[in-house]
């Protein structure tokens, strides 16, 4: 890998990221840097581009312009923003554990099979080893007894915890959370946040798109406020939530309570 010494502790860097859907420009040149152990929270109203920004990092959305550097390795892009080297992006995606709003556990496989699917069938790790790791992770998120259940038989909160375990089973360099609690019933939000808090506490690098302001303030080391596709304000959580400078952020914080 081509990581320079200066960037050794840099996990993810996004520079001048732009993204348009047709004539509508959703991201108008946003940047972000997450060092190892950082927890970067991205907040903003709906339509601010925060999910799109996260999804551009692992190229679930194809950026229109900009640079994305993961672990010191820049993703090779063509002039139109599309991936130049499919193998490269597949390898880099394996180092980024993504957690979706809708969980997206594979419905035709049990929870354990969901966890070992990629380690066994893509990374060709020995099944026994992958399953042992999966069982440990399931125990850690409190789902040891659900290993052989199908996703449909789990509650939303359980499914999301399983999805987090599935991402962890890849032993990723960083975790990407895309509104992980937005599809959950209010009483199930806590159990998922507890797992994420636990990961933050062990020093995992995470980028987190969230509507949970209290949680963002509590776990984040850096907060980015997006508005209309630009970074309106960013900084440490206490500064951003305690003393917002921009008028828009003040209003946003007031409106979300």
């Amino acid at each position, binding site marked *: 890998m081509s990581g320079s010494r200066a960037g050794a502790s840099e996990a993810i860097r996004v520079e001048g990221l732009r993204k348009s859907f047709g004539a509508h420009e959703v991201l108008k040149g946003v940047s972000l840097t997450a060092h190892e152990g950082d927890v970067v929270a991205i907040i903003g109203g709906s339509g601010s581009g925060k999910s799109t920004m996260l999804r551009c990092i*692992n190229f679930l959305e194809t950026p229109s312009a900009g640079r994305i550097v993961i672990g010191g390795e820049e993703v090779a892009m063509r002039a139109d923003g599309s991936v130049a080297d499919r193998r490269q992006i597949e390898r880099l995606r394996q180092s980024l554990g993504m957690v979706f709003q809708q969980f997206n556990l*594979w419905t035709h496989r049990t929870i354990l099979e969901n966890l070992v699917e990629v380690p066994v069938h893509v990374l060709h790790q020995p099944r026994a080893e992958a399953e042992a790791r999966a069982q440990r992770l399931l125990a850690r998120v409190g789902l040891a007894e659900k290993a052989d259940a199908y996703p449909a038989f789990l509650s939303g909160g359980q499914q999301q915890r399983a*999805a987090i375990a599935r991402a962890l089973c890849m032993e990723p360099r960083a975790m990407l959370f895309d509104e992980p609690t937005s599809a959950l019933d209010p009483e199930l939000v806590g159990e998922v946040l507890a797992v994420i808090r636990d990961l933050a506490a062990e020093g995992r690098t995470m980028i987190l798109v969230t509507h949970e302001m209290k949680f963002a303030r509590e776990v984040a080391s850096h907060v980015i406020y997006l508005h209309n596709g630009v970074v309106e304000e960013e900084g440490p959580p206490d500064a951003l939530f305690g003393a917002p400078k921009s008028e828009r952020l003040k209003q946003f914080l007031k409106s979300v309570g």
Partner: protein
Amino acid sequence: MRNFWLPHRIVMAALGVAVLIWCVLTLRWDWLPNYLGLAAMGIWRTIWLLVLSLVLGMMLAIPLGLAQAAGPRWLAWPARGFCTVIRGTPLLLQLWLLYYGLGSLFPTIPWIRQSDLWPILRQAWPYGLLALTLSFAGYEGEVMRGAFRGVVKGQIEAATAMGMPRLTLLRRIWLPQALHRALPTLGGETVLQLKATPLVATITVVDIYAVAGRVRQDTFITYEPLLLLAVVYMAITGIIVLLFRHFERRLPSRVA
């Protein structure tokens, strides 16, 4: 088993037995022992034509469906064209076009006549199998198009986000989920395919349907062979229905 013998089922069973006894006693079955061997061969031929055309047809239908659901335009359009032509014309016509068309074209091409395949190509069944296969592929290509499209986007995104290569994704996630969705439809289509097989009798393939015709020609007995033929088709249909019910039961619940 005790729950099975409810009053209405007892009445139905009694009626069925009565009809069977009436058929055995009043109709002519003396021809049957002479034709048992031929009938068995006919059933065997019907079944392997069905099974082979299902398997080969599905192997074509999956790429046909995938091309239409997610392929580039230069693949999607020919696939859609193929499905439209197959579904827009009678199977009997396709069968005859292949048998009388290809079947009369091949003998005029020297290298085909001299090839090792010629002993097979000069028979009728390859054209019957080809027509049945293409027909099934045309209909199921359309079914699979819908099934591939119907798989929830997040299921595929989750695999993409974990760096799963596209072919692995198709094999491990997309195709299994599409097949699960399509399974009830495929069960019905398989039954329809069974009942399309007798058409091969029109190009001299001796399936079970052709055997019934042979009995009528030889003995001038019409009704009894046809009755037995109906029972045979119903029995095979029953087996297909039970098989698919078994498959569907084994699927994990898909409620998200």
